[in-house]
Every structure is written in structure tokens, then in C-alpha cells.
């Protein structure tokens, strides 16, 4: 029996609760923590903070992710916390009616999904062009125009790499190149793994004290997947899945040899997990694909081949997982052959009794 009488319908918010609400709203929308004061300012008035959500070269996965958000859930977010004034997947109005209310709004944070679409040659900018075409005045392109002004509070929390992150970097540093997943002109909009961390954005954001490279918050990107993986002990002991479906896969051994990119990927997936049901890819027997790392579509593929140059400890628990990370880029001599032998050797010694 579900919560057919939704208590959320009668919220009693005090000031503290309201601040919390602002933080929740920022987190749910994937805004940087720098935006929280602005949301609080907006929220101090009777108005709910207005939010304009733009979709570019994306797959709507971020919106789907928002649908899966449980705290705050979507109804609470939309009715109590923010005023989602523009969101093409949700809004009732279409066409010019959709754009009218947002044209004269005040400052609004923009969490766009995906990147703008254009070719190497700058031949086409479909989304940009259509607005320009219709509105004539480039300063009045509806919500789109805000992108060209100062509202560049992009979301790094939700979209790890390839999508808006890349777009933003390119925007701020023109000429930094087309470092993206795709080797040809089409832009691959990615939904890097971090974005569906929808169920707990609040706890994530509140702990965001620092950032590592790429302006990514430490709470989400501070450690390698490998560091908190429940199968790490198998890695350390040299127990590996050799092929999907083999006896070692069924026993839940380390997935490194079938392509897991956990040793090279910075994300909190194993700690925070997904969808409120304590799962993540490794828990269903599939390796990490490194989807929070920049350009992972190129650097982490083939997904089912093992990472090169990962040093496998001969035995026992090592004291610094960072050592492994440093060897990943090939600084240290490769130990792939050794680890394989160690793994097989260990199984020969004691494998059968474990199964």
C-alpha cells in the first residue's frame, strides 16, 4: 500500500527548513553550491526560485533522472521548492506560448543538459539557428539568449564528462579544442554515471567542501571507484572473473579482467549507489565503464578489454590505493602478466575449495 495520502502536500517550512529546501533544489538540479546563496535570496521572498532548464545535445536522461529523484521527490520539488518555469519535457505550453513567460523573468539559474550542436566547420547550429530565425533579434531569443549572457552556472554535478561539462569548458576557453568522446564532428551527449545519483543529491551537496580537477566536487569525485568497491578484496587477492558467466563471475570475483575501469575512474558510485535500492553496475556483475572520466568514450573503450598497466598486488592488502592509480598512466612498469599469473596461481592453490 503506497502513500496514498501524501503528507508532502502540507509542508510547514521554517527558515531552516527553507534553507535546506534551497540546498535540495540546487542539488536536485545539479547546480553548483555557489548558487545556493542566490537560491536563498530568491527564496527569502515569497517567490519560489525560478529555474530555466535547457536541453541541448542530450538524451533527456538527466530529466529522467530527475523523475527518479526521491528526496526531494519531483512533486515536492516542483510544487514547494522551485518554480520550474522552462523545461521542455515537463511544461504544459508549447511553441511561443512556452517561451513567453520565461522571456521576461528575472535572474534564473540554468542547468542545461548536453552540449550545443555544431560541426567542426561551424556549418550548422540547429538549435541556435532556429531561435535566431524566429525571433530575429539575437538579443531576444527567449530562454536561449540567457546562455549567451552571464548565466553560465552549468552543472558539473550531474553531467560528468562529454556533455555539458565539455561544452562549458569549450565555452570558457575557446580554442581549447574539441576534446570530446567522438572523433568526428557529431557531439555525443553523454549521461555519465554520476548524473543518476538522483536519490541523494542533498547529502552529496552538503558535503561538498572541495573540488578536484575539472571543478568536480570531492564528495562525488574524490576517490576512485576501485577504492570503495565491494570486490576490491578479490582484486587484492588476485581472484578475477575471466569471462562473463564463468564460475568466478558467479562467485562475485573482481571484474578487472573483463574490463572494469574502476581503477582509473573517480566517482562515488560504490558508496552512494543508485535508485534507492543499493545497486550499481558492479553489483550486477558488470564492470565500471569509466563514464565519469573526461572523454571516456574514447579513453575507456573497448569497455570489455582490461585496462593496461594496472599493477596488481602480489598478495594481501596494500596500504595505498593511490599507488595503483599512479601506475595507470604507464609511469610504472606494466605488471599485467604478473597479475594474471598470480590470479591463476592462487586459484590453483586454493580455488576449488572456495567454489
Amino acid at each position, binding site marked *: 500500500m*503506497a502513500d*496514498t*495520502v*501524501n503528507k508532502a502536500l*502540507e509542508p510547514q517550512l521554517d527558515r531552516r527548513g527553507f534553507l535546506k529546501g534551497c540546498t535540495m533544489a540546487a542539488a536536485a538540479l545539479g547546480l553548483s553550491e555557489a548558487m545556493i546563496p542566490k537560491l536563498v535570496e530568491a527564496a527569502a521572498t*515569497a517567490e519560489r526560485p525560478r529555474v530555466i532548464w535547457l*536541453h541541448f*545535445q542530450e*538524451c*533527456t*536522461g538527466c530529466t529522467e533522472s530527475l*523523475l*527518479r529523484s*526521491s528526496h526531494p*521527490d519531483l*512533486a515536492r520539488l*516542483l*510544487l514547494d521548492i*522551485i*518554480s520550474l518555469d522552462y523545461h*521542455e*519535457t515537463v*511544461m*504544459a*505550453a*508549447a*511553441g511561443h*506560448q*512556452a517561451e513567453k513567460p520565461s522571456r521576461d523573468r528575472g535572474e534564473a539559474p540554468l542547468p542545461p543538459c548536453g552540449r550545443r*550542436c555544431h560541426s567542426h566547420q561551424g*556549418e550548422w547550429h*540547429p*538549435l541556435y539557428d532556429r531561435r535566431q530565425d524566429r525571433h530575429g533579434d539575437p538579443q531576444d531569443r527567449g530562454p536561449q539568449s540567457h546562455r549567451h549572457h552571464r548565466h553560465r552556472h552549468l552543472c558539473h554535478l550531474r553531467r560528468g564528462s562529454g556533455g555539458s561539462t565539455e561544452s562549458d569548458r569549450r565555452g570558457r576557453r575557446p580554442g581549447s579544442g574539441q576534446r570530446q568522446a*567522438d572523433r*568526428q*564532428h*557529431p557531439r*555525443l551527449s553523454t*549521461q555519465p554515471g554520476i548524473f*543518476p545519483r538522483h536519490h541523494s543529491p542533498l547529502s552529496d551537496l552538503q558535503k561538498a567542501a572541495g573540488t578536484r580537477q575539472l571543478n568536480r566536487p570531492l564528495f562525488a569525485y574524490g576517490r576512485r571507484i576501485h577504492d570503495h568497491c565491494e570486490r576490491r578484496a578479490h582484486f587484492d587477492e588476485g581472484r578475477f572473473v575471466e569471462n*562473463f*558467466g564463468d564460475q568466478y*563471475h*558467479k*562467485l*562475485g570475483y573482481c571484474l578487472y579482467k573483463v574490463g572494469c575501469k574502476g581503477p582509473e575512474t573517480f566517482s562515488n558510485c560504490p558508496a552512494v549507489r*543508485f535508485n534507492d*535500492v543499493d*545497486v550499481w*553496475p558492479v*553489483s*550486477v*556483475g*558488470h564492470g565500471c*565503464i569509466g563514464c565519469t572520466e573526461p572523454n571516456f*568514450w574514447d579513453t575507456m*573503450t*573497448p*569497455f*570489455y578489454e582490461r585496462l593496461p598497466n594496472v599493477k596488481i598486488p602480489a598478495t594481501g592488502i596494500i596500504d595505498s590505493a593511490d599507488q595503483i592509480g599512479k601506475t595507470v598512466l604507464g609511469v610504472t612498469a606494466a605488471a599485467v602478466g604478473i597479475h594474471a599469473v598470480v590470479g591463476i596461481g592462487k586459484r590453483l592453490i586454493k580455488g576449488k575449495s572456495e567454489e
Partner: protein
Amino acid sequence: MAQRITIDPVTRIEGHLRVDVEVDGGKVTKAWSSGQMYRGLENILKGRDPRDAWLFVQRICGVCTTVHALASVRSVENALGLEIPYNAQLIRNLVQSIHCLHDHIVHFYALSALDWVDVVSALSADPVKTAALADSLSDWPGNSPKRFAAVKAKVKALVDSGQLGPFANAYWGHAAMKLPPEANLMAVSHYLEALDYQRKATMALAIIGGKNPHIQNLTVGGVTTNINPENQTAVTMERLYYIKQLVEEVSSFIKNVYMVDVVAVGALYAGWIPYGAGVTNYLAAPDMFLDAAGTKADLPGGTVFGGDLKTIKPINVHADAYFKENVQESIAKAWYDGNWSKHPWESTTDPKFTDFQDDGKYTWLKAPRFQGKPMQVGPLAQMVVGYAQGHEMTVKSVNGFLEKVSAVAGTTVGPEALHGTIGRHAARAVRAGMMAISPSNIGASWSRTSPKATMRSSVPGPIPRANSAVSVSTRPRAACCRTGSSSKTGKSKITNVLSPRPGTPGRVTTRTSSVPTRRH
């Protein structure tokens, strides 16, 4: 003098769509449907390991992730002549059916309902009368006067705040909004409840898929999900019961709320039933396979032309020659270099933007054709094709649904009423009801087999030989087809994706009338 109306953006869809119509004397005389975004997944996939492709193509659409993924791995398996383990097939079915439960609910409530339901009108509803109306339709426990009063207060607070958010500037109060205030209040309440139930479905899906919207438990050759009651790292009985409970809750919502609301909308908007039939050629892919080889589909595939059930031709397997030989895609109107119709595995994707040309190219969408004809795909196509073949579950479900509509509408509504916009909603609701039964059938299958034998190895190395591949599947909202060929080096050489995702080629139904939105 014809008047040109441009609707851009078309909202509450996935992607970027623009629709232009010319209206003369109150009638639409010309129409253009323009996909506004280019993705180019076909080119991105070239030269990559085919085993990786499914993870890429899932990102075609964050809404219909699983179906793209399944079509991709099946395509590679088809190229390799690979059977997958029976239990892996069942897990894939579970993924697909639970995803449908989620998506059909979202499609009706979050995306479509606002075309039929006047949110502001709910303010003048009497909660007690609303409860009486709801009780006459279903015994859903959420239909209480207290609940409806709370929802009404919530709507009032929203309207009083002056910040309608996503509900701003819509057609509230328009004469074409037919529902009485009580029906509107009931629907708004269900809209909010639907947000909870769609999430429950995604939780069930994540238990198998590792996460979603983008799942990560597939692999060429099977699935990676290990069902084993005796291993703590596997999906154990505890997890299976969790799925069962979630699916039961969602199924109850579908049966007692979603299907009932679609019946009510259909009956109260009976005048709209003839509209929106669009293309009445139907194509459905066989799906939910019950054997390792993928030859025995629980949901039948096939084609029906001109809405005539007698024209039914079955499609039994994904690589069916009847399908494979007859499907083509055209770029006559799309921003790609050239002007041809080709089989998907022979076609190319070379973007060439020309701006919007009324008589030339105006969209990023390639146009798939079957025997040169546009086809309607998706839940209605699956119902029509299943009905025409006398598929027991389809016939029973469709007839049962039509009986309910007839009872509420006070007139006999037959299957011909399904050709239209409301019919598509009805078919989707019926399909949701059918898909809700599927997981428990799968559970029953497991009780007859050894759950330990779930998995098998995926293809161990690079794809070894030249081959061509095809796979097609019906999605919650449309259908997609995956084709590919691999060269001797085992890399993807040509890949193609037929999908209505704007920016990836193809919408099997490209006519404006088939856009599943309703305007007043």
C-alpha cells in the same frame, strides 16, 4: 490565404521537435515535422568494438534506454549466430517489461495528461463529489475526499502564488477542455501519485539493471546479472521478492488508476476518438522471447496495411527476411548529403545542413519506410498486429478495455476506435496492463528452472568475422531497428539506427498527424 503556424518547441516529448502547419479555411493544408537535433551515433560507432555499441546507443534516448540497448546486443548476436541462455532471455524480458510499466505511466500522466486535463479547473471541484466519481470508476484507496481536498489546496496554493511553473500559460479554461472539474481534480491527484509509482518501477528495474535510466547489466551473449539464491553477491530471493513487491504495487496503480483514467478520458472525449489516426499501416516487432534462440515471441510481430486486419503478415523473429528486405530509409527531406532510399545497412550519415526548405530538406530525421510506405509503430501497432493474429492475451486485453470504455461512454466502442490519438493512449494502457503480468510469469518460469544457470559467457574476443546484422524491437513509444555489419577486423563498419529520436535517423511514422500530441 493560408496561414503558417510554427510550433517550436513541441513540448512534453523527448528531443527537439518543430512542427509547421499551413492552415487554410480552418483546415490544415500542409504540414512539416522537423527533428531539430543531430546526434550522429552511426558515425560515432564506426570502427568501435561491436560489444561496446549497446552502451553508446542507450544514450540515443534517456527515456527508452533499455530498448536501444537490447536491440544493439541482439544485432551483434544475430551477426554471430549466437543464442543466449534461456534465463538471460527472461532477465532481458524483465528489463523490458518493467521499463514499459515506468514509461507508459510517465507518458500518460507527465507528458500527455496536460492536453486533456485542465489543472486550474480542479479548483472548482468538490472533493467529496470527486471521491464519489472516482469510487464509481475504481476502488483505488487513494481516492479519498481528504486526499482530493489536500490536492485541491495544493493547486490553489500554486495558482495563488502566481508562479505556475511548468503549468504556466497553457490552455486552461479553453472550451476544448471537456472534463468536468471533479474529473480534473481526480486526474491532478493521479498525476501526482503517478510520480511516486513510476519511481517504484525504476527501483525494480535498477535491481536487475544495476542502475537506470541507463542500465548496465547486458552484454553480447547474455546478461551479467547473476540470479543465485545461494550467493551473497548475486540477485537472491530477497532481491527477487523486492522486485515482486514493487511490480505488484505498480501493477495495482496501472490497473486501478492508469487504465481507469484512460477509459475516463476516452469516454469523456469521445468526440476526439476519430482524430489522429494518421498512418494506418502498422509495423510491430516480435518481442519478449520465451526461448534461448529468440524464435518464440510472447508478443507477436507483423504488419497490417491500411488499418485492414486481414492484411496481417507475421514477423516472427528479429532477423525475419520479410522485415529485413522491405525496410528502407530515405533522406529526401533530411539534412544529409544525397537523396536516396536505401536499406539501413547500406546507407550513410553525412550531415549537410541547408536551413529549413519548405520544398526541400527541413529535418534531421531520416524517414524509414517499409515497402516504400510510412508505418505506424509503437504500442498501438503491437496491439493491432496482435489482435489481427488472434494473439490470446492481446485480444482479451483489448476487448476487456473496450468493454469498459463502452460502459462509461454509454455506447458500444469497437476496435476500430483504436485508430487515433485516444486509441494510442488506450493501446499503451492495455500494453501496460499486459506488461504488468509479464514479470510474475517470468517468476513462475524461474521456479521451474535452475536459477543458477543464468549466465553464459559473452563473446570472448574481438568480433571475428564479416557479417551483417539486424534487430528490431518495439519501444514504449515507438520502435527501433539496429543494423550493422562488421569487417574482417572485427570492428563495426556500418552501423545504423532507425529510431524516432530526433537527430538519429528515422521516424517510421513521419507524418505530422502521427505526432502523439494534441493541440486545440
